[in-house]
């Protein structure tokens, strides 16, 4: 079932090392002061992985992922603060509503390709954002909603950054493993076939529309779960987190991570979230300049994305070294 564990002992070891690192990261002598940030990175990773599956593997653009992130956040916030719904149930409802929404709009919208698909998803994202702002009797309007409760299991509440760190990364690792499995499965091969040639994929019996919509729904559900976790992590949400720039942020993370790389998503989310909260805050509101530059530079010089390009350089170097080793 877990394809990654079957592959070879090295990826198994890498997985164990990664989990070990996740446990060590928040300890006091390491990054203990940064658990709030580390939790946000986990949340962003979940959204980014969804976009990677859609853009990197399937070749379909979405410039409105922040809308799904927002729908998750708002459903969780509204249901748990105003209607006293259990937060876990609210999260489940949010994910189901987002998935259904993505499914319904997915079929018409994925008849479009390339530039038109990009514009359609961009427009959709802005429509949803306008609704967050204007349906103020539910969403609190431009000010948003506050006082969102912590998640809890039985009597155990996730009421500190450290506790939420472990909860969020538990979800995040699940999402990463699910994605990894999809990529290595029959579905993943179908998606890559669609990416390289839709005509060829169709000719070997792949139902293109169905696969595109499936992966779109999955990316929306990932974003919705991340949104719910975001609402319970920050306890307050406002429409400004889910606007066009929000979608662009997710895009920057995916691009820096390397669009077609599940594990690159962590790298992208971590790099950009760190840049945003630790370095660019000192520049005031000028962080968009850096994001714009990053998008342009990475796409011009490394169209596969920063993480994947660095990995390719490393692999090439290792290969050359081992070849030299054989000769001497």
């Amino acid at each position, binding site marked *: 079932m877990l394809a990654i564990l079957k592959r070879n002992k090295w990826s198994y070891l890498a997985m164990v090392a990664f989990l070990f690192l996740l446990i060590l990261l928040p300890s006091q002598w390491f990054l203990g002061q940064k658990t709030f940030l580390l939790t946000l990175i986990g949340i962003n990773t979940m959204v980014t992985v969804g976009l990677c599956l859609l853009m990197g593997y399937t070749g379909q653009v979405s410039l409105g992922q922040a809308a799904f992130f927002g729908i998750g956040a708002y459903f969780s916030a509204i249901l748990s603060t105003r209607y006293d719904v259990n937060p876990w149930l609210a999260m489940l409802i949010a994910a189901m509503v987002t998935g259904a929404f993505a499914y319904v709009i997915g079929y018409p919208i994925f008849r479009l390709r390339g530039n038109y698909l990009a*514009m359609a998803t961009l427009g959709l994202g802005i429509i949803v954002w306008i609704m967050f702002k204007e349906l103020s009797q539910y969403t609190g309007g431009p000010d948003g909603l506050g006082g969102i409760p912590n998640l809890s299991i039985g009597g155990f509440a996730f009421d500190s950054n450290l506790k939420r760190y472990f909860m969020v990364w538990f979800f995040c690792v699940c999402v990463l493993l699910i994605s990894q499995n999809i990529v290595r499965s029959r579905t993943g091969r179908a998606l890559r076939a669609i990416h390289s040639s839709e005509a060829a994929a169709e000719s070997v019996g792949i139902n293109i529309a169905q696969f595109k919509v499936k992966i779109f729904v999955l990316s929306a559900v990932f974003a919705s779960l991340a949104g719910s976790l975001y609402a319970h992590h920050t306890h307050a949400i406002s429409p400004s987190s889910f606007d066009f720039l929000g979608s662009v942020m997710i895009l920057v993370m995916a691009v820096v991570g390397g669009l077609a790389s599940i594990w690159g998503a962590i790298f992208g989310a971590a790099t950009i979230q760190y840049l945003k909260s630790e370095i660019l805050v000192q520049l005031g509101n000028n962080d968009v300049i850096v994001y714009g530059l990053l998008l342009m530079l990475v796409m011009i010089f490394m169209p596969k994305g920063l993480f994947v390009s660095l990995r390719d350089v490393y692999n090439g170097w290792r290969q050359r070294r081992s070849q030299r080793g054989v000769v001497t």
Partner: protein
Amino acid sequence: MTTDLFVQSLTSGLTQGCIYALIGLGFTIIFSVTGIINFAQGDFVMLGGMLSFFLAKSAGLSLLPALLLSILIATLIGAVLYLLAIRTARRASVVSLIIITIGAAIFIRGIAGRIWGANPVAPPFFTGDSPLSILGASIQPQALWIIGTTLVATIVLHLFFSYTMMGKALKACAMNRTAATFVGINPRMMALIAFAMAAALGALGGVIIAPLSTTSYNVGAMLGLKGFVAASVGGFRSQIVTVIGGIMLGLVESLAVALNWGPFTSAYKEAIALVVLLLILLIRSRKLSEEERAG
């Protein structure tokens, strides 16, 4: 709806629609010549408006030189965008080009916000601000400037494409890029010209609308989307249909808000354009994807 309200919203729809038309023309020119959608197109409208305000206010230029200089600077920025970001990314996929032009859009937006701040600004009117009275509605003279300028620009553009060597070369490139190279047309040069022209048209829209509706560093995204709606009505090929599409969109928006019925309130004004966008894309989806494959 009373007559004066009707005339009022008709004029405001017409003026807004003219700007969408000019942006749409920019999309159409770039797409037909290069096959690229420039997601930064709306930001040239912002550049035109902001530049004209600051050249007139801070640099103390008189109106006409300020307007011309703003359009010139925006045109140069459009050319630089092509040379630095598009041309260097040779053989980039559609997805890469989308991401590059989005990067350019938010980069330009960020720089504009950094230089000029976040407050909305309004450059001076071309010919005073005493409103004219037409059928009981008060119309700003600027509205007539906008409609007149757009009309002239559309006609000049048509003449340029029909009667000049360069216009015909651009048209040849739009019809068949490979065949155009055989008769000695340099498609890269044509792409550069297309980007510069599109930037100039956007900036022209910016300098004429900014006195009426104010401008700020972040208006580009929404304007770009609406120009895209206009261009997709024209299938990214026909300039005249693009202009009609832009004006129709402006009218639909302003009349829907004037009706003030059900969900069509001013709060949802932007959403109306987006719903129109989705509808047009879905209705024309087959035709548009054929165009894209051919282009």
